[in-house]
């Protein structure tokens, strides 16, 4: 996977986005949309993998599903917000749960945005673009 999604971070290179999603179908569309939108994309199928990849090289933005195998999305979010190096990386929660409680929890846990599935490629790319611009990446 990493071969498919070369890491090119920092000024001048492509901005990198880490996609954490366990559903292969959704993953495919998100990855394709982001790639065609001009981002370097890395993919993690579960929380463990996400943490490993992010620790290797911090991404510019994370798209995070909440329902994950073993280490769930909340733990990944907490991991990002706890570490000094990763704290500033915007984490966008991407979930199928439309509940108000979860949205609130995501906000207080430090998520930059909360996207509810189904979401179109346009909205997804707009959100990513907006957040990356805001952080000056």
């Amino acid at each position, binding site marked *: 996977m990493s071969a498919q999604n070369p890491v090119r971070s920092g000024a001048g290179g492509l901005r990198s986005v880490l996609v954490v999603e*366990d*559903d292969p*179908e*959704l993953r*495919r*569309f*998100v990855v*394709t*949309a982001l790639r*065609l*939108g001009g981002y370097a994309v890395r993919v993690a199928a*579960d929380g463990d993998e996400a943490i490993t990849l992010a620790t290797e090289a911090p991404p510019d933005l994370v798209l995070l599903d909440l*329902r*994950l*195998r*073993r280490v*769930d999305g909340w733990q990944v979010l907490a991991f990002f917000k706890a570490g000094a190096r990763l704290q500033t990386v915007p984490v966008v929660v991407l979930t*199928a*749960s*439309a*509940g108000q409680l979860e949205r609130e929890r995501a906000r207080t846990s430090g998520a930059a945005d909360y996207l*509810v*599935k*189904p*979401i*179109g*490629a*346009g909205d*997804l*790319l707009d959100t990513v673009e907006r957040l990356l611009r805001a952080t000056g990446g």
Partner: protein
Amino acid sequence: MDIRRRAWDDPIAHLYAGTAIFLLALLALAFWSVRDAPPLVLPWSLAVVEGLSLLAGLSVAFLCLGRYRVLHQPASLWIGVAFLANGALTVLYILSWPGLVWYGGILTDNPNTAHWLYLLKWTTLAGGLLAAAVWGAGSVRDHLPRAVAAGVGAVLAGGLVMLLEERLPLLEVGRRTLPSQPLVVASVVVPLGEVWAALLVVAFLIGSVLALRRYRRDDDVLLGYAAVMQLVAAFILAEAVLGGQRYDFWWYLSRLSNIVAYLIILLGLLTEYVGLYRRERDRAEEARRALAESEMLRDVAQAISGSADVQQVMERVAAHARDHLAAQQAGVLIRADNGAFTWRVPGQAETNGHQRNGFSVADVAALAEHPLCGMAPGAPLPPAVQALFGSETRGVLVVPMVAGSTSCGALLLGYDTPRELDERDLRFAEALAGQAAMAWEQAQARHEAAQAAAAREADRLKSELLATVSHELRTPLGSIKGHATTLARFSAQMEPEERHEFLTAIDRATDRLSELVDNLLLVQRLDAGLLPTFPEPLDLAELAEQIVAETAERTAAHPLSTDVPAGLPAVRGDPRRVRQVLVNLVDNASKYSPAGRPIRVAAEQVGEEVLVSVHDEGEGIPAEHLERVFERFHRLDSDLRQSTSGTGLGLTICQGIVEAHGGRIWAESAGVGRGSTFRFTLPIWKDA
């Protein structure tokens, strides 16, 4: 009938009756003794009377001294000592009375000595009774030496009389000599005997008044009887003063009255003793009853706290009430949820029958209006009661059970013969009924709490289902929306293969979406019990192969094998439904087992059925979940659960489908971490 029998059981009544018969016999003896001309010899009956008087007097003495030992009361001491000394003097008197037991008397042949002894013994009694009346129930400390001294003195006086004999002044009692000694000279100027006897009459009368007052003040029966006895004694001595020279009926009667006088006080003591004995017995009985009652109430209370089953408690209440109140039958009417009352009899599993269970609130209230119906002789029994207890029952006790203001039942006791129940019996029955009502109330509260909890749980499951369904719908929708919008936006930049891949993804997602909708509809139909099946001969080997091919993609992480023997008979099944069951089970197996672990689908013939099993080497199922996994929305709380999709309806649907085919489905697991096997049966196809 009942009252008469009771009187017959009363020992006091026996005593009275016996005394009355005895006195009547004595009277008859007196009449018989004097029916001819006055005898020149003493009638032999006098000896009997004197002997009996002696016995009665000594009995009184011992009873009184016994009473004194318990009560430490001067009255008992003085009367006891007086009767004892009197007994000693009576012995001397009998032995000295010429002609009474021997011609001329045994100890002496001087009738004057007998007269002295006669008056001496009455004096002893008069003194003792007077002392008893004066000192009554006061402190006894100073009395014992005094009384003993007085008693000994009286006996010594008797001895002195025997010694002095000839030197004693002559006593002429009633100017009458004994029949055997008709020639005693009446020569004394002062009739000493009459004066002495008159003084004794006065002493007895004063003693009687004092004893009566003492009796009224201290409520001491002994002195009450003593008062009566002293009146009789006064009569005896008055007769001695006033009586003529004839040995007539009155003379005999005064002699007989001697024994009457002693018997009165003896009777008093015996009555008192019997009363005490009866009170003691009643107290013991009372204590036994109180203990039994509290034991039963405790038992019922224990049953209430220990058992959730209100019917058990009620039956125990009925059994206790029946045993304790000596009823032949017992039962309880218990209010059910629908407001109707059911009839329960302890020890009987079920009491069916419309007649016995169709009681309404009004019926029970009507029963409670006559709590003791049929107990009065001749009172008719309501038909409702006869329906419960049968026609042999003659009397019924009805105790309503009321919890708060709700009539929750009634305790009924049936008697084959009408029986008197006292206040205490009723109170006990009410206490038991109260306990039963409490049990009912508690059960009601528990029931309501359980219902509320169940309603909350149903609500929670419903909203949880909505959230799950919403989540499940959003996942394929998200796929469709994402792929479609990506295609729309980047179509030009995409490779043709990629575009095709995206369209296929959209296709798959719509398939999944429609399957999900199908499942929801299916559950809806399972709920309503309407699941159409179209059975046909089904080859399981073929079906299993298809499914392996079909699910290969979804279950890629798990080696999938089938083990269906060749020549397995076709089963009777709807291909679409049976496929659904198998796919569901295979999907479940892959969801709940880690990647790489094999899944095996097997089938074999067992009797008239084919047993199909789907085995995985996944997490397994805890024993307590083995049955619950088929419940709607039940999902195992597993590590894998976070990632496992599904509505929680899959196994419910499987169960519904298998049962609609006439088969069974169950789960087996050796335990957590040791894999699980789902098995279901389908009937073998038979050509009609």
